[in-house]
């Protein structure tokens, strides 16, 4: 997947502009209580920053539009293979975070580590088993015995 710099700037600018509007008209009013007698309201700074984000996102869109016909534009790209590996890593971390409470630290880490190593292309079974078992045990011993921090 490839996207030209100008196009990316228009899309990101649009996204950020909507985000700034959301901040100003929904998130800030619902998430920060109004203090009637306040000399400097708790909403003051967040509002100010939201307005700056709005202005900057519009500027970004404008410059993206001006750049649209430029020849020496940068292209942001990610191949399907690369994206798959990144998403897989994020999913593994997410599942790990959910599972570690129930399955406990050492088994969850062994499984996750071995899976990630395998997904990254590690073919040696010896390395897969040795590293994925040794690392969690060493971390566990170090944290629980030396740092006195209890792991799940």
């Amino acid at each position: 997947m490839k996207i030209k710099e100008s196009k990316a700037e228009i899309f990101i600018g649009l996204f950020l502009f909507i985000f700034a509007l959301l901040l100003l008209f929904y998130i800030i009013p619902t998430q920060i209580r109004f203090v009637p007698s306040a000399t400097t309201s708790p909403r003051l700074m967040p509002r100010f920053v939201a307005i700056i984000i709005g202005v900057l996102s519009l500027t970004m869109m404008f410059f993206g539009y001006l750049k649209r016909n430029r020849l020496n534009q940068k292209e942001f790209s990610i191949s399907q293979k690369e994206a798959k590996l990144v998403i897989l890593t994020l999913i593994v971390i997410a599942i790990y975070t959910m599972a570690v409470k129930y399955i406990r630290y050492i088994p969850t880490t062994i499984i996750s580590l071995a899976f990630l190593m395998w997904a990254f292309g590690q073919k040696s079974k010896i390395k897969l088993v040795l590293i994925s078992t040794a690392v969690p045990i060493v971390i566990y011993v170090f944290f629980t015995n030396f740092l006195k921090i209890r792991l799940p």
Partner: protein
Amino acid sequence: MIELLLDGFVNVLVPGNFIYLLGGLILGVVMGAIPGLTATMAIALIIPLTFTISPTQSLIMLLGAYNGGIFGGSISAILLATPGTPSAAATVADGFKLAQKGQAGKAIKTALISSVFGGLFSSIVLILVAEPIARYALKFGPGEFTIIMLFSLTIIASASGKSMIKGLIGGCLGLLFGFVGMDPVYSIPRFTFGNVNLSSGINLVVMLIGSLAVAEILIQIESVARGRTNAHLPPPMTKDDDRLTFKEFKTLLKTLVRSSALGCAIGALPGLGPTLASYVGYDMAKRNSKNPQKFGEGAIEGVAAAEAANNAVCGANLIPLLSLGVPGDTVAAMLIGAFLIQGLTPGPLIFREAPELVYNIYSGLIISNILLFAFVMLTYKFFTNIGKLETTVIFPVVCMFCIVGVYAFNQSLFDVWIMLFFAVLGYILMKFNFPPATMMIGFILAPLFETNFRLALLISNNSYAIFFKSPITWFFWGATLLSIVTIARGKIKDVLAERAIDKELNNI
């Protein structure tokens, strides 16, 4: 001062402390030498290990890792043409060319001696400058601090890289995340979405590990998908190919002093960092060289200039951190996290509250440079193998370290989710060339700026005159203005250069 410094040396050299400095240094060099793993990541991994140790042990270990990590980056830059850390990018040009000629040993030793020289130079500047600034800073009130923070915020623009808009957006996002938690004046929750875990705000270390370390791993994972190659380098032909002779060192002296001074100046200004220092140092050395045509073809002067400059940033970075409590760059921001873990707040008061610790830090910095020299001289041959470590092992392992490190911070899995959120955000930002460092600077400055701004208005009965009252505020208004003008001038130059390239391309 001398007495405190000598006490500092004794304290750092006590085996119980020294071992932490050595450990941090080794980890820093190793991680710096592995392409993709940076000095910042080394510090991110070490911070969770510092809960149970003393402030001296914690900070000297982190400074050792910082020093070692910045140097370590040059090892893979020289051997693999892949900078281990961004700040070693300028070293690649000449370092790798030297290695291709069979002079890898000479290049590494030049990088080492230059790094140590730069590091020691900036340590001395730090010792001489930080305390007088801090003493003066004690006279500052909320009005003055607001303007200093405003000045620091302009640094976001200079740390923005090519696109100032992207940098500023990153900074604004950082400011927004900095508002999460309780309001500093009225203690009402802001942006907590009803979640109690967010009421104390987002943890700096959790955010740093997520948006820098894990996001960087995600970026590196892309290169795993593409597959990586190792460089095959010829062995040295003569004895001199493997060492830096005294005659060569003498010719480098001028470059080393110039680059170290430049590195110090850049390091002392918040937001600029070692990468810029190494490029500026390299550029200045090239301009002043009798043989500028040799730069990029394997000039030891090029390696020396880049390395002395980037390591000089390490010590100088602590000047704004210790004297004003303002982080110079991401590493300094992480050091703030380490200070907070120990119940200390860096800033002018630290010289009164914990003078011993400050001098232990100074001594630790000096000793870490000497130790770096001894350690690398003994082991540099071993480090030549580090670049060949398998990415299929190193990235998953570091990933697991990040998770356990974040969990250990509050023993909360909620923090791991926050880390994951920032990892995704950091990845997207990096992918679309938004510098994540600006988000970090915004995040750190948000509470400082807001608290001082609102306190100043409360004290002055809502009168904005408080921000123009004293000569200090005027000085920093001037500095802010100067900073904006300088940044704008630089950006206009960039735009004009881009347009010229466009015109040329259109003509073709």
